[in-house]
């Protein structure tokens, strides 16, 4: 495989803070609490970049999986919410491999009332490898919303994932995409895990047993928004 560093190219928007945050993430893989904090910090940093591209006063729908809601997505929301209306769409996907790729059907979902009126979608994902989950969740929303732009936000993407996601959609939708990420990795194991990526399977790293759809995990973000 070579050294992990040899398989990573940093994006132009990745300053020293972002690079340090990614390194901290990889160093935190044995401590879920530290890993969570690091992921949240990365979310703040990514959110600050997106913040510069979305007009003040806009209504933004932050889209995330249940595992990313309380950390990466929470960090992004923190950076965006001071001058905008922020709504949330959270999906419990069941992501698994097929012989011809993978799918991630939605099992449960949380759609904050009023989500249809969002001007911008900010789709947050801890790692984008096959783009299957991101594709699924955009599809689950695209016909109920009329976004001016769709930001796809991730700490790390696998090489080619951006083009692969664009190629899936009709041009009218793909042309709305704007990708914000700190690094592109070009190595992936046979099981589809990006290396160095985010250090492994995000569920276990965050201290979750498995995919939230399989455990009934409810993010605090959703509990808060439901006033539960």
């Amino acid at each position, binding site marked *: 495989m070579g050294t992990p560093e040899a398989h990573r190219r940093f994006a132009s928007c990745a300053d020293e803070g972002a690079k340090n945050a990614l390194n901290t993430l990889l160093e935190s893989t044995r401590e879920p609490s530290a890993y969570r904090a690091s992921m949240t910090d990365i979310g703040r940093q990514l959110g600050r970049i997106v913040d510069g591209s979305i007009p003040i006063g806009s209504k933004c729908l932050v889209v995330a999986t249940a595992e990313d809601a309380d950390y990466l997505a929470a960090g992004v929301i923190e950076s965006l919410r001071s001058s905008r209306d922020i709504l949330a769409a959270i999906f419990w996907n069941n992501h698994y491999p097929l*012989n011809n790729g993978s799918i991630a*059907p939605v099992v*449960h979902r949380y759609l904050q009332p009023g989500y249809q009126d969002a001007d911008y979608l900010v789709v947050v994902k801890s790692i984008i490898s096959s783009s299957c989950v991101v594709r699924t969740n955009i599809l689950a929303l695209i016909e109920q919303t009329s976004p001016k732009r769709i930001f796809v936000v991730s700490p790390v993407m696998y090489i080619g994932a951006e083009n692969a996601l664009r190629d899936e*959609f*009709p041009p009218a939708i793909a042309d709305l995409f704007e990708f914000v990420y700190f690094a592109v990795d070009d190595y992936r194991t046979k099981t589809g895990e990006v290396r160095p990526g985010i250090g492994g399977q995000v569920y276990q790293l965050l201290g979750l047993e498995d995919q939230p759809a399989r455990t009934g995990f*409810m993010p605090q973000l959703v*509990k808060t928004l439901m006033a539960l």
Partner: protein
Amino acid sequence: MMLGDGAETEAIEAFVEQQFGGDAVIQLRSIRTGGDNNQKGGVYENFFAVAKICEIVASEDNLADFTLSAQEFSYVDDLCLRQRSNNTKTNYQAKNSSGDAARWTPTHAERFARQTVIDRDFHRVDTSNQVLVVSCPSMAEANRHKISQCGRASFRCEYFPYFPASVQLIFGEDTVRENLKVICGSDDVSTANAVFTLLLGVWHSAQAAARLDDLVRQARHISKPDLFLGLDPTPGPPPPWLTGLCSQYAGLELHIEAGRYVVTYRGLSIAMKVEIEAQMPAALATAQTLNQVLSYLMLQAAPELAN
């Protein structure tokens, strides 16, 4: 008969030589070789095959009556649909082209005619149809006009658009989307795309003569959760304990959607299989907060998702 069956290939060759001569056998062999080499055609042909599967699954009750195969040893070889009950065989040649490759020519007429004879006298079918499928609507229209002059009602040309990705096909071809809506019991496009992907996967794995009920069974087996609930009878009313539970908490509502019981609360949607306990589960009876209730209901999806 199975694809690639050496005995059948030899028998067909012998039949063709007897009927049409040795050059016809050479022509038939060249068609088969061409099918192996055409990768781009593979995407178009496979999407057409899955669209055809969706069409039949959405509209027919007896899926066991239909068999689909690809790349048979045939003059019209991209797809072959058999219907056993009326002994009908329909063969498709798919051309992702707006140029000469898709244009109806006397060569097509000759191949279609020969295949009709093979179907009737070798395969012993009662009805044989040959269809040229093209990705250009104006070419399809021009072809139909030419075919009408052949005087063969069993020859036709159909239009099927080319899209490089299933999402684009679903957005771009209303018929495919409508059929998937029937299959899923929902118009959610993410679900439709997942179903299409599942069917494409089992079709790829099959690639030999496959009964449609078997294809659907295989797709449902690997669908986690089961996304094919539009094919099942409409669920009956939920058990009284579930409706009673929802009435205990303001804002907790219940409806049936896409073949599942869906509990909603302030934007949250929890989907459950309709095969649930007739009596309130003990774990729910002891739940004291709405949070506990929602967590329990969410967990009911887990067994269906297990590998």
